């Protein structure tokens, strides 16, 4: 039995058509609610920084991102963050807590392979590209600003 390309194409089309679809509407609602909520926690930390600790603008920003990252890492360690992610999808991936999650998650399960090549090297398997492309694009923007 040899299968023609036409037959394969037809099969691929059938698979795409019949594949069970996720309920994007419900997913978007939960992404909105959880994402909004996480940002409100960030807003609360920011308010705490400016109103209570009287931090400068830069320090408030640093304080907020550090605290959010602490929260994301801690919840990942407890094994809670992936459960939030099951419901929230992008709502918990896009906020900076999700960035922290993507660093802790590979690091903690590579501890079996040791602290240097396990935890140390695997920490950025998921988050690495974000830093790489973020930094590169910021440098490009900076250089463009040098010349205009």
């Amino acid at each position, binding site marked *: 039995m040899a299968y023609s390309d036409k037959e394969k194409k037809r099969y691929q089309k059938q698979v795409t058509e019949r594949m069970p679809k*996720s309920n*994007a509407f419900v*997913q*978007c609602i939960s*992404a*909105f609610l*959880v*994402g*909004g*909520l996480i*940002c*409100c926690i*960030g*807003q609360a930390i*920011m*308010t705490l920084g400016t109103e209570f600790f009287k931090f400068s603008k830069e320090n408030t*920003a*640093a304080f907020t*991102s*550090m605290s*959010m*990252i602490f929260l994301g*890492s*801690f919840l*990942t*360690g*407890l*094994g809670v963050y992936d459960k939030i992610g099951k419901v*929230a999808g*992008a*709502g918990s*991936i*896009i*906020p*900076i*807590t*999700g*960035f*922290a999650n*993507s*660093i802790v998650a590979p690091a*903690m*399960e590579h*501890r079996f392979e040791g602290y240097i090549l396990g*935890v140390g090297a695997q*920490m950025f398997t*998921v*988050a690495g*590209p*974000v830093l790489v492309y*973020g*930094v590169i*694009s*910021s*440098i490009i*923007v*900076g*250089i463009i*600003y*040098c010349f205009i």
Partner: protein
Amino acid sequence: MDMLMNFVWAFIIGGAICVVGQLLLSFTRLTSARILVLFVVLGVFLTAIGIYESIVELGGAGATVPLTGFGYSLANGAIEGAMENGIIGAITGGLTATAAGIAAAIFFGYLFAIIFKPHSK
């Protein structure tokens, strides 16, 4: 009252940015790693053309907490660095501005990776 409105806007803007990410996840075959990269680069780009600043003014943490906000800090740092120190500032500026976040991520990431064990689910 002002403070309450800040929270409302943070919720709306933050939620909306996440919905954009969710739409990409649900309707395209982009993996979450690609979406994260896309959001950071998008944040850098929108900041460079001056749009993201006004989103941050309105949304506060709603605009800075999502990864686009990370791109915003990177780009702002690079632009400020370029203004003050030319090319060298353009290269160092981004990481200088985001040092707190990256250092915290490495530190807490390592700490909790050492303390906790993964679960099989």
